[in-house]
């Protein structure tokens, strides 16, 4: 068999493996959509019938009115947007420092940054709770935002990898012209790092949008809930739940990260540089 035809055979096998997998991957989403447009009786039917009959569009209206999900939606948006801005800024600054500057203690600090990846959140959770309680931050969004303004090890690493791949000559010239470190960072590095900024914004937004444990601990007032907290409480407080409404709200809850993903998708792969040049 020639090389060309062998290549083609591999690709055909790959497609044969990938296509049935698509059914598996899409199944939960299909069910979610089906349930969101169905009446409750139809969901509890054997055999399952995924085609809504009749189509019920009012589930969305009812779902969002059932608990103040509209408000939760705004709360989650507010937290995620502020967190993304602060965290991207901090991570890019730290990544720039690690990639392009020399200083005593740098290697030790970098190991320290990476080692925080191993730290379970539950270890810091309780003292953080005590600190935030003393500061009067319980039932505010500050505990969900401010601790992330350290940048986060994974994102610092992403930015560092990217900045290291930018040729030295580019910045050397600017440095000789007397451009400050901040000037180089702000006017040269940040504009170049658009793919990393996009990739990390998407990932941070997702992290923030789906976070459950922290809102669970720090938010007690109903009106302050985030979308995941609202959904989780919704499930636990209503024994036989109105699943059609839950699914309608779930679609709404899934929309922002999905839309953001489609907008920034092309950067996601190019923004993650894992090899070192």
């Amino acid at each position, binding site marked *: 068999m020639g090389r060309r035809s062998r290549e083609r055979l591999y*690709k055909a096998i790959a497609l044969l*493996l990938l296509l049935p997998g698509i059914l598996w991957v899409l199944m939960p989403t299909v069910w*979610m959509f089906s349930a969101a447009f169905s009446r409750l009786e139809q969901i509890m039917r054997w055999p399952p019938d995924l085609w809504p009959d009749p189509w019920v569009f009012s589930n969305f209206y009812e779902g969002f009115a059932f608990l103040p999900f509209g408000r939760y939606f705004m709360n989650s948006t507010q937290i995620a947007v502020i967190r993304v801005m602060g965290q991207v800024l901090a991570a890019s600054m730290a990544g720039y420092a690690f990639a392009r500057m020399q200083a005593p203690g740098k290697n030790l600090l970098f190991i320290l940054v990476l080692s925080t990846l191993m730290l379970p959140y539950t270890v810091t959770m309780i003292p953080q709770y005590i600190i935030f309680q003393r500061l009067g931050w319980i039932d505010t969004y500050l505990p969900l935002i401010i601790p992330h303004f350290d940048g986060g090890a994974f994102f610092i690493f992403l930015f560092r990898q990217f900045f290291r791949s930018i040729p030295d000559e580019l910045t050397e010239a600017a440095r000789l012209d007397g451009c400050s470190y901040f000037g180089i960072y702000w006017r040269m590095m940040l504009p170049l790092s658009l793919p990393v900024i996009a990739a990390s914004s998407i990932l941070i937004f997702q992290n923030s949008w789906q976070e459950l444990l922290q809102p669970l601990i720090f938010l007690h007032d109903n009106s302050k809930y985030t979308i995941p907290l609202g959904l989780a409480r919704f499930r636990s407080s209503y024994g036989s739940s109105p699943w059609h409404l839950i699914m309608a709200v779930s679609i709404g809850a899934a929309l922002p990260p999905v839309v953001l993903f489609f907008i920034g998708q092309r950067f996601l792969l190019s923004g993650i540089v894992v090899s070192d040049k």
Partner: protein
Amino acid sequence: MSGMAAVGAGGVERPRLSLRWREAINFYLFLAPWILGFLAFTAIPIVASLILGFTKYNAISPPDFVGLKNFRFLYDDQIFWKSLRVTLTYTVVFVPLQLVSSLLLAMLLNLRVPSMRTIRTIYYLPSILPTVVTGLVWIWLFNADFGLINFFLYKAFEIRGPNWLGSERWVMSAVIISGLWALGGGVIIFLAALQNVPGEFYEAAELDGANILHRFWHVTVPMISPVILYNLMIAMILSLQVFTRIYVLTQGGPNYASYFYNLYVYDNAFSYLKLGLASAQAWILFVLILLLTVLALRTSGRWVHYSGGV
């Protein structure tokens, strides 16, 4: 920033020596957000948590030093061992499955085939959806009477499927299946690594007569081995800390069969207000993770190659 260094050096002309100082000062200024955040929300809490682990503390009256009592209590606590067993069982089964399927999927998604972009997007979709949302959907898919899983089992094999989430025997399988559905981040990192393997390596291997398996073992795996190590460690660390999916899917039930470690930590801390006990528990997990990570790093010398470097 540069002004500060110039003043420090005491003149309009910048002496040569101050260049290194300027760089170091700038380094620490750029790193200031991380350092401050690390001190306030990580370093100090780690120490505080260690100290709290030796106290009885309910968040209202001041902490009471009790020595090793928390650890002795946990040693005798059946539920503690149960939660540890649940978590370790899950990790031992789930992590290898996840790692292998992520790598295989990434390799398939790396082929140049028409419409691959769309296929990639579809496969990544589960990881974009919020965990709480997918958890809610899976509750219903696993439903014994109306769920799609049991419907397919019946249609395909005429099997009457189990009551997945309501049975002590099956709940762990359900948790693992739903976890494998969202492979997500690991796949992307593998994919990025695969795209960085120079094509010439494969061509050279092919000229030497290497078949597809040879190329996988002798080119792909060594070239991306640092990324395999990274994904392995992250998968391990995360699966020991599973919380959200379980909180939604089973809340630890039935009869503690899916009572993961962090669920118990959370309950002790915020449902029963035993903050000292919960701190001790959290620290035990931390030490366990440290040991496993060191073990992974120690043994990695044999199979991880840094020729490409990460």
